[in-house]
């Protein structure tokens, strides 16, 4: 192996690791706030990448219809609950987010499909399609079970995952798609050829991480999410409802998933089930961070990126096995120390 190859593999590792780190963050936020191990995180990636590619092919992706339908179901369920309690104060909000917003996104998507070269519009529409799914999925699948055990929530996650993968197959078919957002442009730094794509991905990830760090550190809602992760009873006692923190954390997860999907769409051919494997690698990073410590998880995700890139060179057919085998020693090492992943039975 020579230096330029090593540098090239490193570039690959950093690019993938940055995306895994984002996904690890999403998984940790969702887990610490709601105790949900969010298996379907990867589906946001597939949905986003494939929706973007479909828009670039001049078609309206099926996810738009799913968004409208899901929004309607949420509106009916919540509307019914309002009718029962005769409290209609939140009706405008309900209509705005679950009916008006999906319709607006659909209109934009339709317009965007006729403009295949308008990349920023496509990115905007893709975000508009994927992000609302976060709170809708929470509302439909998890909110009714907010006090269930971690195991039950995990089983629900697996079910939601299979459902979304299946819908992905229906909407996008079995073929892989690729999109482009940054112009395919390379430049040389010494012996290393750096693509604009990889710089775009790493920069975007870093920017998103900084934004999220500011959000969690300096805004009331970000602090409220951290408070919920720290002390569930304490947070309820100051009026942070489970519904509020659940929807907000799932929205952040969808946002991170959507952005990751848009970022990787140009460098990977994405199939309807690609997202799962990518998110699983973020999950390995999150596990390294004990599902609680984000800085360790970020470093762990980079490690996963390196392991993946170098093992794809030396033992490409064992690439995935090597990465996922990593979970075992990590868990052993973690369980030797004080265990952080605790089931909160006492409430």
């Amino acid at each position: 192996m020579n230096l330029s190859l090593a540098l090239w593999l490193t570039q690959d590792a950093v690019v993938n690791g940055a995306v895994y780190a984002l996904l690890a963050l999403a998984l940790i936020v969702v887990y610490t706030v709601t105790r949900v191990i969010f298996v379907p995180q990867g589906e946001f990636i597939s949905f986003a990448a494939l929706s973007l590619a479909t828009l670039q092919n001049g078609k309206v992706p099926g996810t738009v219809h799913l968004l409208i339908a899901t929004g309607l179901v949420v509106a009916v369920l919540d509307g019914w609950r309002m009718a029962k309690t005769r409290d209609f104060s939140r009706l405008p909000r309900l209509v705005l987010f679950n009916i008006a917003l999906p319709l607006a996104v659909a209109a934009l998507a339709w317009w965007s499909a006729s403009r295949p070269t308008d990349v920023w519009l496509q990115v905007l529409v893709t975000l508009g399609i994927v992000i609302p799914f976060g709170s809708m999925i929470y509302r439909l699948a998890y909110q009714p079970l907010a006090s269930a055990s971690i195991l039950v929530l995990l089983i629900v996650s697996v079910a939601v995952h299979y459902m979304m993968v299946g819908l992905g197959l229906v909407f996008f078919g079995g073929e892989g798609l690729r999109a482009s957002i940054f112009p395919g442009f390379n430049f040389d730094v010494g012996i290393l050829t750096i693509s604009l794509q990889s710089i775009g991905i790493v920069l975007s990830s870093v920017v998103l991480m900084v934004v999220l760090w500011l959000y969690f550190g300096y805004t009331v809602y970000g602090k409220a999410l951290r408070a919920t992760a720290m002390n569930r009873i304490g947070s309820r006692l100051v009026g942070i409802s489970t519904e509020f923190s659940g929807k907000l954390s799932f929205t952040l997860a969808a946002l991170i998933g959507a952005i990751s999907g848009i970022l990787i769409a140009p460098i990977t051919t994405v199939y309807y089930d690609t997202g799962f494997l990518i998110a699983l690698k973020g999950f390995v990073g999150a596990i390294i961070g004990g599902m609680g410590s984000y800085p360790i998880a970020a470093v762990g995700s980079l490690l996963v990126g390196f392991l993946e890139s170098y093992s794809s060179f030396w033992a490409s057919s064992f690439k995935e096995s090597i990465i996922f085998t990593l979970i075992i020693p990590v868990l052993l090492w973690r369980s030797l120390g004080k265990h952080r992943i605790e089931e909160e039975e006492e409430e």
Partner: protein
Amino acid sequence: MSATLEVEKLAVSYDKVEALHGASLRVDKGSIVTVIGPNGAGKTTMLAAMMGLLPSRGAIVYGGRDISMMPVEARVDEGLCLVPERRELFSEMSVEDNLLLGAFSRIRRGAGKIDGDIEEIFTRFPRLKERRRQLAGTLSGGERQMLALGRALMAKPQLLMLDEPSLGLAPRIVRDIFHVIASLRSSGVSILLVEQNARAALQVADYGYVLELGEVVLEGPAASLVTNPRVAETYLGLAGAAD
């Protein structure tokens, strides 16, 4: 006087064991009501049920409405506030952030600047001001009590429920805390006070209940409870008084 809170036959069970067997209680507007009783009597259980942390049977009428089906957060929005026995602070956050989040329910409903309210808490508890950037988890026991009370006050409650606010405190700080409680009443807040320190509680309260084994066994104006021989013997430690 009108009742802020009226609880009718409140019963709470843990799994199959009933811990509270139909207790009734009433807190008048702007008054201090205390509940005293031995360990394991069900005091904490009762407060948790009134706050909505535990499912219960019976009626909980607050401000003229039955709130027994309301979730915790909605009760907070309505001005009901609990300082729980275990305080439940956000231990990896600063004192200031804990106070800020105390006002979360008001902020979400559109309260503007709350910096002034935080300053107000700091004038009440100057100790907290010195430690405003310290993490709540590193505070001393007494400072933690102050922070728990301060965080609850940030919600501007109409009815404040306190579970043993003097737990483990030095006598001087107990005096301070009871001073704050008395001053809250004069600003119109109703208070439900659960205490082991029966003497201090009955001194500051208008009315009192004695809870034993999940049942109200005695109630009356605080002044008459102090002189009640049974209370005096069991809760005020005056062994001779009953003879």
